[in-house]
């Protein structure tokens, strides 16, 4: 299959420069395929496939190469290169710069709005304020150190650590024991629960519905407490290792986590049930920040944001332990649809955990790995969407690590969603995507 054919039937999972090649990992109906082009023949395809835009910009600023046929290359993460913001041809339209320093304690990002009165004509997002050369830090690191870094790449430690481990297990041909596989997924779903509840609490805060925000925030904190009970860390750090797990929860802990999560699941469902029936909540969320299905597909969006636009794509469909699995899909692509996806997915995650913990296989939680030179990749469904990791080992150490955080693919969706909306509705719209700045900036 040629590159163009693959892009026509699918979307990019990861694109990066690797030595003399530009490597494409593409999701097609036949599964994820891997293609590569020599750097000298690298052609720009972003005009035809907008989903490649950010990838091309990232590669170009990293390597200094310019793909043939592309002229308007703006830097993505670096701030030492010249950058020209979009200027609206209509002089009545004025620009509102927001950030990177905000009034609240949130991550830094710059948003340049072109507005006519309060109506947004165009939004341009500029990130990179948290670019810390994350991928380069991996070079030469032993696995024990590298996984600590992997947990700090984005806002989802478990998902990143798990994808990192799976990439290495693919590289070395290791199969973790079944008990470890299940417990890893339990951790991943617990992470999804507290992340989703955090998004939902944030959404209610942004519309001033403080009662629901505080109640959901409480459940979120208690869910994180369960994660701490389970693995010793409220964000699930230091639990995973290549080949399995560091932790070995005993039966009493497992029972207690299962019971407490069941109660928390009911409480979350109750609060979300009445909050999402509140007509004032619906008034704020409905028809706001719409991303049509075509745009979501064109931009290659992933995760809950894509599923809220009607894209039936969730990597858990391919996860053998999740079977049978139906992705939560909503039409519409507005803030309400995204909120409903978060709500429904939280419920599904509580169910999955309960199902797994009721029937946990016995056995060890770690299998030894034999370090060998080679490369491997993995992608999995984190709370925000698809996390991709590529790792190459050399002499028992990481030689190259490549990460694509789901937020990287969803930021352009926010630009689309804001077209024609009111400026005061931006924070709510932004929150409904809940994108990670650190994960995209790397």
């Amino acid at each position, binding site marked *: 299959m040629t590159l163009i054919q693959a892009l026509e039937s699918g979307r990019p999972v990861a694109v990066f420069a690797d030595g003399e090649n530009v490597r494409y990992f593409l999701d097609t109906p036949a599964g994820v395929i891997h293609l590569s082009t020599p750097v000298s023949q690298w052609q720009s395809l972003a005009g035809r496939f907008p989903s490649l835009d950010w990838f091309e910009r990232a590669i170009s600023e990293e390597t200094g190469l310019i793909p043939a046929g592309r002229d308007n290359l703006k830097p993505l993460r670096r701030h030492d290169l010249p950058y020209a913001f979009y200027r609206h041809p209509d002089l009545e339209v004025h620009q509102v710069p927001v950030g990177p320093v905000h*009034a*609240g304690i949130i991550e830094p990002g710059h948003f340049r709005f072109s507005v006519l009165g309060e109506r947004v004509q165009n939004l341009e997002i500029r990130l990179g304020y948290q670019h810390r050369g994350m991928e380069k830090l991996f070079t030469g690191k032993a696995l024990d150190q590298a996984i600590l870094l992997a947990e700090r790449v984005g806002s989802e430690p478990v998902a990143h650590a798990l994808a990192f481990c799976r990439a290495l297990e693919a590289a070395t041909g290791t199969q973790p024991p079944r008990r470890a596989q299940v417990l890893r997924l339990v951790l991943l779903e617990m992470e999804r629960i507290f992340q989703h509840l955090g998004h939902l609490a944030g959404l209610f805060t*942004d519309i*001033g*519905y403080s009662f629901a925000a505080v*109640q959901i925030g409480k459940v979120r904190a208690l869910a994180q407490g369960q994660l701490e009970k389970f693995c010793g860390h409220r964000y699930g750090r230091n639990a995973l290792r290549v080949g399995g797990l560091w932790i070995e929860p005993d039966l009493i802990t497992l029972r207690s986590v299962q019971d407490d999560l069941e109660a928390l699941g009911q409480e979350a469902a109750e609060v979300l049930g009445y909050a999402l029936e509140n007509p004032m909540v619906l008034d704020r969320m409905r028809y706001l920040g719409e991303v049509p299905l075509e745009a979501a597909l064109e931009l290659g969006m992933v995760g809950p944001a894509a599923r809220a636009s009607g894209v039936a794509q969730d990597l858990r469909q391919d996860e053998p332990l999740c079977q049978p699995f139906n992705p939560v899909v909503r039409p519409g692509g507005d803030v309400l649809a995204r909120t409903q996806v978060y709500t429904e997915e939280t419920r599904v995650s509580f169910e999955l955990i309960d199902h797994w913990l009721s029937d946990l296989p016995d056995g060890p939680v770690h299998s030894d790995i034999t370090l060998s030179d080679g490369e491997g990749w993995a992608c999995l469904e984190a709370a925000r969407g698809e996390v991709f990791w590529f790792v190459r080992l050399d002499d028992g150490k990481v030689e190259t690590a490549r990460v694509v955080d789901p937020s990287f693919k969803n930021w352009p969706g926010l630009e689309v969603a804001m077209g024609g909306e009111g400026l005061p509705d*931006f*924070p*709510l719209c932004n929150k409904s995507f809940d994108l990670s700045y650190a994960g995209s900036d790397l």
Partner: protein
Amino acid sequence: MSAVLLLLLAPLFTGCLKWVKARLQNRQGPGPLIDYFNLLKLAQKSYIVPETASAVFLLGPSLSFLGAVLAATMLPVFPGLSFTGDFLLVLYLLNLGRFFQALAALDSGSAFGGQGSYRESLVAVLTEPGTILALSAVALSSQELSLASLAPLSAQNLLVYALALAALLLSLVAEGARMPVDDPATHLELTMIHEAQLLDHSGPLLALYELASGVKMLSYLALASLLLPLSHVLAFLLMVVLGLAGLAIIETYGVRLRYLRLPDLLTYNTLAGILAMLGVVLRFRI
């Protein structure tokens, strides 16, 4: 006397509001006296003036505070200054503060100052007619044009007074920048109306703004309390408690309106004012 009472009571009112809200949300929250400590803390800090700003930047908080205090002196919670047409002066003294606040925010040179200024001006434009009409209707129906000598509530003026009360309470929410018009607790600059104007003011300047905003809210409650058939002090205290409870409930269980929907809500304010006026002119009776 009234001004002193309102000044002393303002931090307690805003502090109690935060405390009651926290309790309604199942949170512990800071104690009701928090805002006295806040003001004390802010007063001891230094302040920063943006490089682009002129003296207007300092006038904003000072005149905002002065306007609110002067308006409060004319409120007949306790007998004090009173003359024909004083209700108009009270309203426009409160608006004077806002005018300079908008100028100071524009003067700061930040995009958010300008944004807060035009948004709050819009809210003011939408609120003003209702407030003026409502108070004028009450004054006309009393045939006395000063706040201290409004006629007591009776069967003759019940309708006018009820409409005026509704208009004044809506004005309180809009002028006090409370939910559902504005969210005083938000940290999101783009959604801010009133708070966006204060972003560049710090230390004692911010303290003046905070105090002025508390006094302003109490002033509207005092105006509304004049319509109750009780002695002025008693009516005022009752109104403060009711206002506190009402605001706490709205801000806990309510949802903030979309900014572009504000005119829908504030139309009711004008409508109530117009109806009250018609009530006087056409001598509606129940």
